[in-house]
């Protein structure tokens, strides 16, 4: 819901065509997944970070991401610190197992990769309205029925959530409170009184929705038009060129300055 609201704002990133953003995102993700080079990943994370205020995305979004991922990051760094195959510089020992510098850096690189990938998601979802994204998908010739189904499903998310919370409240009023049940009890009898009303209520609603969709001329045998204009503008061309230059620079750096696997002067154990 928050990202739907943010997508209504206006910024240079908002104004870009969804296709431009999707292309840059794939370029960025591809690079992030390909490399373990810490300086490169740091630069990419910094680039994404700079785009947050430009796109009017509050930094608390980043804080939420970091809070959710913090535990995973700690686990990755600890596991790799002890288990990394190339580790040769012990920092300390836990019983007889060494925690190595190289392992720690490797874990850190994995965390940066994940962070770089995840950080980019709000930059797409919070700057692109659903109708614009749908129009963008239509440009790349995805069937409209698929696009429309996707759009309605996204629209239904808040509705399903609010219905689920209403149902939960309703059953709590009859003494059925899943927050007080243990895991097994929840699985066995906790969810049935919640999911059955949810499914039945949504089925009832979708029958009405079917009537409303038909009544608005859905499926008419004419070439559909789109209110959203997703044709590339000068900004799109500029953004694409800039991205290509940056990523070409990164590839050049890999090819010429690649000191070690992680971009740091650490020799791995052979």
């Amino acid at each position, binding site marked *: *819901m928050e990202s*739907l*609201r943010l997508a*209504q704002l206006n910024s240079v990133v908002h104004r870009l065509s969804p296709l431009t953003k999707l292309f840059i995102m794939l370029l960025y993700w591809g690079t992030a997944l390909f490399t373990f080079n810490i300086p490169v990943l740091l630069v990419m994370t910094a680039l994404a970070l700079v785009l947050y205020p430009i796109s009017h995305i509050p930094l608390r979004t980043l804080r939420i991401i970091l809070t959710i991922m913090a535990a995973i990051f700690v686990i990755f760094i600890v596991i790799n610190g002890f288990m990394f195959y190339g580790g040769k510089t012990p920092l300390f020992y836990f019983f007889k197992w060494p925690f190595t510098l190289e392992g720690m850096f490797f874990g850190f690189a994995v965390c940066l990769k994940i962070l770089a990938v995840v950080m980019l998601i709000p930059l797409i979802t919070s700057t692109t*309205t*659903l*109708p614009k994204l749908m129009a963008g998908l239509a440009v790349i010739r995805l069937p409209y029925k698929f696009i429309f189904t996707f*759009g*309605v499903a*996204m*629209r239904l998310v*808040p*509705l399903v959530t609010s*219905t689920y919370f*209403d*149902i939960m*409240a*309703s*059953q*709590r*009023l*009859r*003494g*059925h*409170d899943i927050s*007080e049940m243990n895991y097994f009890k929840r699985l066995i009898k906790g969810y*049935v*009184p919640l999911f*059955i*009303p949810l499914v*039945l*209520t949504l089925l*009832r*609603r*979708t029958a*009405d*929705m*079917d*009537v*409303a*969709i*038909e*009544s*608005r*001329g*859905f*499926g*008419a045998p*004419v*070439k*559909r*038009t*789109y*209110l*959203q*204009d997703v044709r590339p503008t000068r900004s799109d061309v500029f953004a694409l060129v800039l991205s290509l230059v940056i990523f070409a620079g990164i590839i050049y750096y890999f090819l010429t300055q690649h000191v070690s696997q992680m971009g740091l002067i650490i020799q791995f154990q052979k």
Partner: protein
Amino acid sequence: MADPIIEIENLSYTYPSATKALTEVSLKVFPGEYLAIVGANGAGKTTLCMFLNGVIPNVVGGRVSGNVHVCGMDTFEHHVYDIAQNVGLVLQDPESQLFSADVRSEIAFAAENRGVPRDEILARMGEVLKIVRLEELASRLSDELSGGQKQRLAIAANLIVRPKILVADEPTSQLDPIGKGEVFSTLSSLNKDFGMTVVIASHDVDEIERFADRVIVLDHGSIILQGPPDQVFREVETLDRIFVHVPDLARLGKTLNIGGGQPLSLEIPKAAAQIGDWLGCGKIPSGKAFEEPSISRLELTKDSSINTPAVEVKNITYSYPGTSTPAISNMTFAIPKGQFVGIIGQNGGGKTTIMKCLVGLLKPSQGEISLDNKPLKGQKVGEIATQIGLILQNPDTQLFCMSVEEEIRFGLENLHLPPEEIERRTEDALKITGLGTFRQLYPFKLSLGDRRKVAVASIVAMRPQVLIFDEPLTGQDHKGRYELVNLAEDLHQAGHTVIMISHDMELVARYTQRTLVVGKGKLLLDAPTSEVFDHVSLLRETYIDPPEIIQLAQDLRRCGLPSGLLSIDQVLEAIQSLRKQTVPGER
């Protein structure tokens, strides 16, 4: 006379489920007409609406005979997308007919489907937003709109293809008074200012009486009455027989013979003038004209007799997470045992938030709530449910069992009661709610009214002293409303304290002893119901108008009618008694 824009001949229809919905319906609607369809739930109103844009039989199927021609098109022969260019359809549930994320996209959808060029859509968008008065909300997400705004958006989404006819199927049944007013005035403007033909199915007879040119009354799928509202609504006996709501003044006019061969007008000022003349108060003012109570009387009731309050609320404040303005702030009131209390006010004013705090679903950030002098703090929702039961607006959020009796037992089993006690309470609840014959039926297959009764039974079985009904009348027809409120009254008579949140002022006036008016998160007024409706300006702030009969009685105070009259019977008796005083010899 112009050719009819809608022409239906001998239309009969049976749903695929074998339910017979329409029988030999014939109807002509002329361009620019505002036609209202009234009837009890299940009378065939929705079915008839669905025929007008071809959804039936093209999408729904079933057995059909007869003819339907709309704008010269045989709706059986054309696709819905072709008919939709001429006929817009607005449905009951605002949520089910909006499937785009934001206002502009929702409006554009129908035009995009028809291949209207983008520039043309943009030009039409401006016009349409202006007509439904949503210009300032054009950049909003659909989810951010109120119920009335969502229905206006649904209207706009149909107008973008410039239909000649707009069909609205109970578009206001789920709205508060402000939303209802918005939708009716938009439809009226479309009809009067733009000449659009409007067909509306509705239970809101007061608005129909004001706006519609013609009314048809459906009963068991047949048209049994039709004509101008002023004529149709005077058929009180017929309408009573088929459970259609009769406007207050029409019912009063049926019994009150004011002579002169003139029937009592259905408009309040004219009716008041007619009765005033008949009573002779135009010549000699015998009473004191109605005046709103002064501000000093707006003090909240501090009833010294409340020694044993069933519910006591002291200075509670609650803010929803992520919001800066409290949903309710510093609210204080007490409800004594055995009272029937109404809570009224516009949606978003804080009514439901108070109720959720009372049953422990929300925890107030400050203040204290006690039930039967025991503080609520520290108790679990399940424990609180045995003292105060909340029956939520939508019964479908709780029904999941295969039979009505299992549904009732569910709450009792969660209380871990012995089997014989569960059986005893289930039987009692079935008896109180009159659901005995449905005990083995699948609840989801029952009518909305009966599903609501199942929800009531499942809460009543937990034996709470206090019962709260949250908007129990939404989407109900006249019969369903009375059945449910009568059930609430029976429970009240049986000793329960009953709190009813409602937008139905007529039923609040008729049944409750005391009324709380809530708005903008504050308790605006807490007074006996007989006094509450005198605070006209304060009620108007929350978009509430007193029922017609109370407005008439207020107008007639200048003739000596006493204050505090709430029902038609009371007003009738007072008028007749006054008449006897002014014309002593008359019987």
